[in-house]
């Protein structure tokens, strides 16, 4: 996806890591329990506008729960969450965020284009505008030729790109991604990582990204948040100072290996590796 | 509460609700003289028909009727119906056993031979879309013309046919359900076709066989009842329903007989379902998605 020409142009346009502005997501002392199980224990986290924050940790560390609390799909048991300066509920009804799940979660009965149109339909856009926007988004994920196909006719990677196009269709301030590439093979995954960075650069959307792949987290993020399970809490936040634009060469830099090692050491230090 | 317990309570609640609705309708129709109030439009079903005959009894009346003599005097309706149930169950059992065996054999043949499958399977499928039960009078009258067969065998033949179709389809589906990797594993042991059939495919098919047998258990009862009413001077539950239905002042007995027929259907299905649970539990295997 990221052709050399394109990345060359976007060198200067790489989103700056802003720390000063009001955070897009602010999580303050959030605890969430499911019956006896404490899924999140006193978690605090800021996500600055334009940043790309990965939540990483083993199964049961509460990373998906945290994402759902931010998305107002789950309520915190205690603590406070602010999304785009509002309550998560208000942010959800204002459609301030788009969401991508591990499964593409496309509607089998809709064509690719009409899948991308779905949120726009719910927001009451008229047909012409919807169509134009969907085509624009399909161009962004390079699936223009597949607009009239049905999801079942696409590969897993392509389906996930449709899901990304759908999540971004209404230009949300925030993109929440729950292990979006977790079910894909390694090669497809690396390609989609590059593509996602390209889209992020173009749209300047803030991203919260849940993954259990250390290389993926380091490659993509401005910050990697390492979490530990039982109860789920934040171990450490590691800023990723790799140069941008990032491309396949990034994965061969010494600094990249240092950061991967740092994440791994954090997990090992907590007895998780 | 356990899932099963809640299911049972919901089931009872809904059946009780239906009984209440039944009684409410009855009371309403009696109060309004079978008319929608304030109009001269009749209700769909009158509580009393022509000649003041009862045709919408209290829910408990058919049950009570089982304990009373069913005509003039002597034998109670319950005792009479028990005899008819025995007669009908013989047909059901014969039809079910023969139909299941035949279906299993044909399904196995189809699993073995692509040619047989392609030649015959379309007809097995098509036969599911046509009202095969329409043959009932033809089969029963035909069998009855054969001196050497007892009278109930024609009805049993109809039941057999109705059981055999779902059994064939589900046997074939079941024998094909073993994963390809397991089949490859067996081949890697150089297992013969028979060994693969008995050690892999038949065990894999067991849950499907029960799906077919559960459909068959119900179909056998339907076949027996329909078979019994399609020839003159028959015996059994179907014949009893038919004759009570002909006489309009016997409606409580008609309801009671229909109720008993329903219970026979449920008993037939439940027997196979219980057997299924016992067998699948013994194998501790997972069944197909229901």
């Amino acid at each position, binding site marked *: 996806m990221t052709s050399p020409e394109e990345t060359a142009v976007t060198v200067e346009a790489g989103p700056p890591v802003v720390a000063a502005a009001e955070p897009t997501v602010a999580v303050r002392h959030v605890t969430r329990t499911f019956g006896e199980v404490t899924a999140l224990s006193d978690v605090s986290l800021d996500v600055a506008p334009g940043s790309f924050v990965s939540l990483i940790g083993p199964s049961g560390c509460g990373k998906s729960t945290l994402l759902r609390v931010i998305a107002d799909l789950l309520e915190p048991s205690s603590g406070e969450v602010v999304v785009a300066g509002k309550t998560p509920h208000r942010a959800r009804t204002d459609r301030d965020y788009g969401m991508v799940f591990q499964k593409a979660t496309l509607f089998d009965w809709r064509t690719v284009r009409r899948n991308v149109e779905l949120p726009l339909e719910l927001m009451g856009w008229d047909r012409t505008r919807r169509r134009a926007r969907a085509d624009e988004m399909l161009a962004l994920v390079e699936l223009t030729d597949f607009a009239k196909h049905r999801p079942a006719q696409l590969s897993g990677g392509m389906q996930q790109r449709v899901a990304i196009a759908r999540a971004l269709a209404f230009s949300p301030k925030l993109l929440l991604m729950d292990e979006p590439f977790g079910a894909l093979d390694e090669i497809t995954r690396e390609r989609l990582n590059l593509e996602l960075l390209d889209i992020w650069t173009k749209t300047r959307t803030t991203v919260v990204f849940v993954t259990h792949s250390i290389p993926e987290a380091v490659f993509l993020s401005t910050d990697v948040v390492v979490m530990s399970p039982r109860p789920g809490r934040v171990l450490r936040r590691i800023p990723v100072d790799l140069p941008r634009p990032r491309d396949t060469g990034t994965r061969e830099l010494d600094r990249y290996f240092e950061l991967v090692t740092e994440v791994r050491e954090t997990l090992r230090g907590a007895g998780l590796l | 509460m356990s899932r099963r317990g809640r299911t049972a309570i919901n089931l009872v609640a809904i059946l009780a609700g239906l009984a209440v609705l039944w009684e409410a309708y009855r009371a309403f129709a009696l109060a309004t003289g079978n008319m929608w109030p304030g109009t001269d439009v009749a209700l769909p079903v009158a509580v009393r028909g022509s000649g003041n005959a009862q045709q919408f009894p209290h829910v408990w009346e058919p049950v009570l009727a089982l304990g009373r003599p069913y005509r003039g005097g002597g034998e109670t309706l319950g005792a009479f119906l028990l005899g008819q149930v025995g007669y009908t169950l013989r047909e059901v059992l014969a039809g079910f056993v023969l139909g299941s065996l035949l279906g299993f054999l044909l399904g196995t043949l189809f699993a073995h031979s692509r040619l047989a499958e392609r030649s015959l399977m379309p007809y097995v499928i098509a036969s*599911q879309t046509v009202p095969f039960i329409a043959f009932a009078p033809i089969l029963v009258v035909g069998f009855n013309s054969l001196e050497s067969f007892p009278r109930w065998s024609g009805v049993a033949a109809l039941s057999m046919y109705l059981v055999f179709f779902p059994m064939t389809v589900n046997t074939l589906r079941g024998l094909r359900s073993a994963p390809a990797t397991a089949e490859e594993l067996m081949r890697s042991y150089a297992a013969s076709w028979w060994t693969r059939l008995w050690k892999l495919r038949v065990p894999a098919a067991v849950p499907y066989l029960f799906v077919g047998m559960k459909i068959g258990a119900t179909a056998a009862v339907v076949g027996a009842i329909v078979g019994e009413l399609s020839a003159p001077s028959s015996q059994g539950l179907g014949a009893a329903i038919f004759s009570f239905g002909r006489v309009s002042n016997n409606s409580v007995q008609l309801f009671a007989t229909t109720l008993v027929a329903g219970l026979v259907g449920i008993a037939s299905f439940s027997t196979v379902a219980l057997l299924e649970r016992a067998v699948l539990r013994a194998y501790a295997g997972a069944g197909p998605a229901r």
Partner: protein
Amino acid sequence: MTAAPVTGVRRLRPPSALPAALTALAVLVAWEVVVRVLAIRPILLPAPSAIAATFVADVPRLVRALVVTGRAALLGFVLGSLGGFAVGAAATRWRVLREGLIPVGVVFGAVPIVATAPIFNLWLGALSIWSNVAVVALVVFFPMMINTITGLASASDSHRELMRSYAAPQRQVFAKLLLPASLPFVFGALRVSAALSVIAAVVSDFFGGFRDSAGFFIKTLMANADYTGSWATVVALCLFGLLLYGAVALAERWSVPWKEQ
């Protein structure tokens, strides 16, 4: 990007119709020969040629019989399916119904519902078409109810979460997610019901009623020793059943194009 996609919905290669057609031909010929050579009595099995001759000669009567029985089947099919869908859809609103109606459906699925035909004859009149329609509708009702409940519950949790993330109102969730997700199940019930409705209509005929119905002819002609006439009526009824099933299958292909058949 990734490998070329599969264009067009993947379908199994249609199996050659030749073996099946040859079988039909062979069976018909063998049937004819056996009947003639062994001189089998027509009460047991008439020759196919005799059935065909009667069929052709009796077309007006057969059409009349199909109209009488067919319209009861069709009306009951439509009303029972609508009723089953309505109750199934209503059940998604109330948990007691949602959880209680499935076992109710299973119980009634095991019951020979066609045996209620005399009750409906009693209630609605043996000579009223509505008594036949009611039996058909009742038979068709339960499979549709169960499949509607199952179908409306078939959307995955992540699809529901997606709709929630869009803050979609309940009405939209139903129209855009639950309803389309249920369609394959609804059509599954319709296919079963197409066959069941003809069965219920003809059994209802057997219990008495219309003089011109298919069931009446099958039963009476058999009693009057007009065996080929009875057979021809069954053949006509089977053709009607296939037609109805085919119509539903066609409607399904048109309405649920995303499902491989």
